[in-house]
């Protein structure tokens, strides 16, 4: 299973390299734009933290760590390709048929198709370098256990975002036209949390780590990993736990939607139906 998945990711990576080499001017411009966009998003909170020496109980280096963590998550999400961002489009436009005629389990097709690891490595590199720098500044004991927990949280944050986008994207099974753009709208709702949430009122903070889990994409895991004041001993396991719960919910919804799709297909008889 793993070997087959890696083989398909390899096929995506080869297409990605080929496209970059073929359209090098555009590829450079694209990568540079992406790099500037992500770096630019980090500047404002860092400047605020530098001006005041901290944001709440977060020192400057911790703010940098959080932003770098977020950039790493978002770069991996981008590298995973179209599937989470455009699931509703894929369903709404009847393009799921293309996936279903491939002799692969659907999860593997969705996971591997459109894999573009070479478009987003600059942002990932930036994120990893800044995380290393900031954790050194904070004198975090970055032993194997801590690094393992960091990797586990990064994966969990990616899973949370994917599950959130899939949950919304599944709406397109029942309302293919009305919800065609819901995945990209949902990504706008959850993405790019630039400031620590500590000063935010508790009810709103609760929303931001549950219903709209932006806080799980960088704030909560960074807070737990850096042991910011007020962090509980088990906080580093909250994001992985949330990933399991949200992932299970998204999977349940997706399977329900797929069963509906098997009954109705992408066809013209539904009044809110798929494009032809």
């Amino acid at each position, binding site marked *: 299973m793993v070997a087959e998945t890696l083989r*398909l990711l390899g096929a995506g990576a080869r*297409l990605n390299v080929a496209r970059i080499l073929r359209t090098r001017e555009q590829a450079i411009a694209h990568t540079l734009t992406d790099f500037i966009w992500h770096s630019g998003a980090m500047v404002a909170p860092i400047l605020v933290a530098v001006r005041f020496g901290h944001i709440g109980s977060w020192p400057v280096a911790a703010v940098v760590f959080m932003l770098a963590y977020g950039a790493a998550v978002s770069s991996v999400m981008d590298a995973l390709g179209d599937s989470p961002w455009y699931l509703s489009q894929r369903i709404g436009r009847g393009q799921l048929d293309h996936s279903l005629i491939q*002799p692969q389990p659907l999860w593997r097709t969705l996971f591997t198709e459109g894999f573009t690891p070479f478009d987003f490595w600059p942002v990932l590199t930036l994120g990893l370098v800044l995380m290393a720098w900031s954790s050194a500044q904070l004198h975090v004991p970055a032993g194997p256990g801590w690094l393992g927990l960091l990797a586990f949280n990064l994966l969990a944050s990616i899973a949370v975002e994917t599950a959130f986008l899939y949950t919304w994207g599944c709406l397109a099974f029942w309302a293919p036209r009305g919800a065609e753009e819901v995945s990209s709208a949902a990504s706008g709702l959850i993405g790019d949390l630039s400031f620590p949430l500590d000063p935010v009122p508790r009810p709103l903070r609760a929303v931001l780590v549950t219903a709209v889990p932006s806080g799980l994409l960088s704030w909560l895991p960074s807070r737990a990993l850096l042991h910011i004041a007020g962090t509980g001993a088990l906080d580093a396991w909250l994001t992985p736990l949330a990933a399991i719960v949200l992932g299970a919910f998204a999977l349940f919804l997706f399977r329900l939607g797929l069963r509906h799709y098997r009954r109705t297909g992408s066809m013209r008889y539904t009044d809110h139906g798929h494009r032809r």
Partner: protein
Amino acid sequence: MATVVELRGVHKSFQRRLRSSTFAGLLRDLARPRRETVTALAGIDLAVEAGEMVAYAGPNGAGKSTTIKLLAGLLAPDSGTVRSLGVDPVRDRVRYVGKIGVVFGQRTELWWDHPVAATFAWRKTVWNIPDDVYRRSLAFARELLGLDPFWNATARELSLGQRMRADLALALVGEPQILFLDEPTIGLDVLVKQEVLGAISTLSRERAVTVMITSHDMADLEQLHARIVLLKEGAIAVDGSFDDLRRRMGDRRRLVLETDSPAAPALPGAMHLASQEMRHEYAFDAIATPIPKLLAAAAVRAHLVDVETHRAPIEDMIADLYRDWRGA
């Protein structure tokens, strides 16, 4: 020969919501939505033998695409059984779709921003096609469909005809046992259409691939010398050869008389269709009105300069059939 596709008592219907055009009606629909059932397939029984070419035709909404989707594992029937290559296409999808090729005329499987060659290489990986099978089937498909001139062009640069040829070739890579072609000639010009149909014919003749093809273009389908399965409102109305269909519809023919007068002579047993200067065209059934008898009648009624007879185009026959169905 072995049966490779079998549909037994297959029903498939869809719900369609009815809409009002008045404001009051819209409010009423909001509170109590009204739906109607659209029957796409009403108890289809069909068996296709290995190596057979089946032309699956019928008016719009007859259930052609629904059948192809059922057989491609994209849709489950409401009731009845669908078996293809001995398996249930939905339950055994992953194993099954590796053995078939599917082409949707209105969509493409090609990677839009990549050269045609890249999509083929990608397919080899995803379909897990062994090297020798890939090399053999690719060489065959490239030659059969003439892909070389645009092999390195990106899909977005291709004309519709080139795209369809590439899509068809893509479906052939890996040597599928069955090919499902849903309107593969839609929108193609005459020349490309001939090339695509020629390729499908060759494929069936030389490789004994089972082909199920849908099209609105009956002349295309007749050209393939396929078994014709004609659907009417989700049920099979005709299943046989095109010759059977012609016999069933009567030996419909056309007679063109060139006379020395612009007035078309009235001929018993023939219906005057059109006149152009001194040329007059008639439709007749050669079984009810034998040709010698008709010509003798024509010779009595007009001074004949030239005479032509030919079979009525299949399109006209099918149009008459559809009209009969609609009127029934």
